[in-house]
């Protein structure tokens, strides 16, 4: 092989050997610990594949970001994680790299660029693209690296990620560790094109196949790929053909899908043995010394991990969100100078102001570049900030949401503009499994300032793929904040806060109220999440409404006033966090509560408020809590059908009158 031809530096050889041996011995120790019951959950070892992580990571520095898989122990160690941190994490101890929150499949050490292993196949590819995108925005020369198995090569994330990396020339390495089985399904069966490397051509990027058990060979290929990436020449796909010689996970049977002979043959091709044989003449005594040193290091790490304490139970609920941002400039009182503008103009002002002061903000979406957004959400910004910060995307919602996740993890502040929130659903796995959980899983060491915005709402025959209201569902996800403004001035202040806080925010704008107007203060301000607004004070009945329903209740309350019924209207403004106190205070005054929501009642926003008020406000109730909601039905197209699945002003009037008679 050509590798034999050129000289390899002694230091490199010994370093590669040391890393591989550290991985091997740590994994074997973990396998023993798993048998002893010290590892509580899954344990997917990297035995047999050590050459790949060792070779790739030896070309990286601490600022380069590695995104890994469920089989990630080797990546973590190669990236520089201490064996103690890895072993303690699998033991569920405080000294673990994720402070006992993650285990084998959630190894985080962002301080050294180890951005996490993942229990889900695929997202690491998109997150590495995000790391690459951050590098472009921050211009810091860093590289994003995705390690993934052959299983991920058949996942949509592979397609979307490689395409995005290609069109934006992202500094990313896609390292496919083809160990020939996705869990237990053979790649030969699962792939129409059994060469992963050849697929690079489909996206216009270099695809290189390399012997995954030849550490020197991978080292050279990776070195070149990293140089290309840092030089702005774009991504490289590297397929490393290898084999894991232990079962998929410790404790699992291994010979239903492969034979003992297969495994034995591959053991003969052990990458560590191979390097040792090749350089035995030069470095035999150094290798022996390293073996002994690693043995002692791993033993000591295991003993220390075993002796280290478990996390205290009080810490179980910490780091779900970042510490709250202090709101410096609150919304000015109504008597201050203001101007009447539309909801759309208000949010555009907020984004424009924040992009001007924070160069780390970039926006991604379909048609948000020169076009300025389908709903004019980015009007005029492309001219100021250019294509990198106003980035038009292919139609690959999962792809660019996953990219946003990786970007936020690596120091930028992505704004994803979905146009219609229904499109959120294609990226839901990335939002729920990755974006929402990342701060917690990293024990608060990663911040996730991702803003995901899109239009919701029924009206104008948008039909069922352009009209959903998903805040009830999204509000159930710990780690997300869900903002649903109804008024222009609130929309501006809330969007400003969303662009300053460090948590992922779903910002959902009802399409039918984008042109409604309100007096918006001229002075700069932001509005903290979790503070409801009393839109209108009243004494007979409390009505809680959100988004467009706020406007409908205002209209209804005019005619109710004629009947002597005084409506107190409360807009929670954010669904997560939800301000129960303001609702309770109002209920204490009126004794009656109606919740009006366009989304269906079942397990929804209205159900949550009703349940909370029955709990904390039981003695305040002078009537049953009533809900007026949209139908449990996909949104129909025909106007005659559409109007009956969403509450109207007349419905609200009727419901309030009925509630007064209870």
């Amino acid at each position, binding site marked *: 092989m050509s590798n034999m031809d050129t000289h390899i530096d002694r230091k490199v050889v010994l370093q590669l050997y040391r890393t591989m041996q550290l991985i091997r011995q740590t994994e074997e120790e973990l396998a023993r610990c798993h048998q002893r019951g010290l590892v509580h959950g899954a344990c997917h070892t990297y035995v047999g594949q050590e050459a790949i992580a060792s070779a790739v990571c030896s070309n990286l520095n601490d600022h380069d970001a590695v995104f890994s898989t469920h089989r990630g122990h080797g990546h973590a160690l190669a990236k520089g994680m201490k064996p103690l941190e890895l072993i303690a994490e699998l033991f569920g101890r405080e000294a673990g790299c994720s402070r006992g929150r993650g285990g084998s499949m959630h190894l985080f050490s962002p301080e050294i660029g180890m951005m996490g292993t993942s229990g889900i196949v695929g997202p690491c590819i998109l997150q590495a693209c995000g790391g690459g995108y951050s590098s472009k925005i921050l211009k810091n020369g860093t590289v994003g690296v995705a390690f993934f198995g052959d299983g991920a090569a058949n996942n949509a994330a592979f397609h979307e990620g490689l395409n995005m990396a290609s069109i934006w020339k992202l500094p990313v390495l896609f390292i496919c560790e083809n160990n020939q089985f996705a869990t237990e399904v053979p790649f030969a069966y699962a792939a129409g094109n059994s060469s992963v490397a050849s697929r690079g051509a489909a996206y216009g990027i270099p695809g290189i196949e390399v012997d995954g058990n030849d550490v020197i060979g991978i080292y050279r290929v990776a070195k070149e790929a990293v140089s290309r990436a840092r030089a702005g020449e774009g991504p490289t796909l590297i397929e490393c053909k290898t084999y894991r010689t232990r079962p998929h996970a410790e404790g699992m049977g291994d010979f239903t899908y492969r034979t003992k002979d297969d495994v034995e043959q591959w053991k003969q091709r052990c990458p560590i043995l191979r390097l040792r044989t090749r350089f035995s003449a030069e470095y035999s005594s150094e290798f022996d010394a390293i073996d002994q040193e690693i043995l002692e290091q791993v033993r000591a790490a295991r003993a220390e991990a075993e002796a280290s304490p478990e996390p205290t139970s009080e810490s179980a609920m910490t780091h779900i969100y970042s510490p709250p941002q202090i709101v410096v400039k609150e919304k000015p009182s109504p008597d201050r100078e203001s101007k009447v503008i539309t909801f759309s103009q208000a949010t555009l002002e907020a984004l424009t102001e924040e992009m001007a002061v924070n160069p780390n903000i970039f926006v991604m979406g379909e048609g948000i570049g020169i076009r300025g957004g389908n709903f004019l959400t980015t009007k005029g910004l492309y001219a100021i900030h250019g294509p990198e910060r106003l980035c038009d995307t292919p139609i690959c919602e999962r792809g660019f949401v996953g990219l946003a996740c990786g970007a936020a993890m690596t120091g930028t502040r992505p704004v994803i503009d979905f146009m219609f929130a229904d499109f959120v659903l294609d990226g839901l796995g990335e939002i729920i499994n990755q974006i929402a959980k990342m701060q917690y899983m990293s024990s608060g060491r990663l911040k996730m300032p991702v803003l995901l915005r899109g239009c919701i709402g029924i009206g104008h025959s948008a039909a069922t793929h352009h009209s959903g209201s998903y805040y009830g569902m999204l509000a159930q996800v710990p780690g997300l904040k869900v903002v649903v403004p109804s008024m222009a001035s609130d929309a501006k202040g809330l969007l400003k806060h969303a662009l300053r806080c460090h948590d992922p925010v779903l910002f959902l704008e009802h399409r039918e109220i984008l042109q409604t107007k309100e007096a918006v203060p001229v002075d700069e301000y932001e509005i903290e999440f979790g503070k409801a607004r009393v839109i209108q004070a009243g004494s007979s009945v409390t009505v809680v409404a959100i988004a467009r329903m706020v406007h409908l209740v205002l209209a209804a309350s005019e005619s109710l006033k004629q009947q002597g019924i005084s409506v107190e209207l409360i807009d929670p403004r954010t669904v997560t966090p939800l301000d129960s106190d303001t609702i309770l205070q109002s209920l204490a005054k009126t*004794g009656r509560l109606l919740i009006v929501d366009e989304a269906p009642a079942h397990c929804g926003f209205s159900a949550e408020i009703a349940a909370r008020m029955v709990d904390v406000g039981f*003695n*305040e109730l002078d009537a049953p809590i009533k809900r007026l909601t949209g139908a449990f039905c996909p949104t129909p197209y025909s106007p005659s059908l559409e109007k009956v699945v969403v509450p109207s002003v007349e419905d609200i009037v009727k419901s309030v009158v009925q509630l007064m008679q*209870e």
Partner: protein
Amino acid sequence: MAEEIRFPRLGWSMEEGRFVQWLKSDGDLVREGEILFEMEGEKALQEIESVGNGILKIAADAPQPDEVVQVGRLLGYLLLPNEKVPEDGSPSQPTVLTDVQPKADEQGPQGIEPAEDSISESRVIATPRARRLAQETGVVWSELVGSGRDGRIREADVRNAAKALNVSSQGVHKDGANRFTPRRKMIAERLRMSREQTIPVTLTTQVDVSQLVAYREMQKKMQNVRVPAFTDLFAKHVAIVLARHPAMSIRWNHDHTELHDVPASEFHIGIAVDTSDGLLVPVIRDVSTKSLDEIVSQSKALIEKARSGRLTREEMSGGVLSITNLGSFGIDAFTPIINAPEIAILGLGAIRREPMFDAYGQVKAVERMVLSLTFDHAAVDGAPAAAFLKDLVSEIESVH
């Protein structure tokens, strides 16, 4: 035959009480001796046992939890299987259902629980908010006609009733709560009765309690977990002295027409306890035959029960004399009210360090307190009462 369950009279003066809650559910099979419901009599919570067997049928107009109820009100019935609730409220024969009749649930409303529908129709329902206001204003909401759906009583109904009662403006504090609670009302009635039926005279004198103070200090130093309170010490000495004063160891009968001797073996001493719900007087049993240590542990347990509202009526009756202590508030002398049918009550004042001439004319510092003995002049004259008090003083001062 249907057996009626009525709201019982727990004490001779009890006219009404608070129905706290059922401890059995409608339809439960109840056996004699099982606890049926909880009520509050004159001062204490009491668990009421069933005196019969049968299936509990709660009356249609049975009181709601916490409702104030007249003694004798019908609460429900104990029925035999297949027996109907008497329609006119009087017990009736069970309805005969023969074996040949089909299963009850196929018979609709004529099935096993024929009264179910009529009961739910006539059940009075009030909103939580209305109930709260009713409690605050003293309105008995179960007697109102509701203006809400299906006759549900709402806040407005209670408010109107409160206005009619004129309690909304007078009985209600500015925070809205009526402080004249049923408990308070019962205490007031007892005290008023005492005022009406007894002729109270209060004697005061000073007593040197230096020895008692020293004794307690010593107990504290020994880190005794049961350091006796002054009330405990006085209870012990009162029992000793009472045995020498038969004129004072007497009690009225239940209707206040006869006086009876109380033998020393039955000297039960009441101790006044201030609780968040008002004054309660639990009784320490058999003080003459008990050691001080036993008295202390009994009084501690009683005080704790009083403060948590778990005293039974038994634990508050049968005393020969009661002791009340306002010393901790710095009160010297006062005129305690007799806890009838007892004929005397002893008030303890604040302990003060004062100079005193001893038998040799030397000034020395002593710990003194004022004793206030209120006795019922209808039952005993001033001289025997004063003699008792004098004897008590010497008893206390001779403690070593």
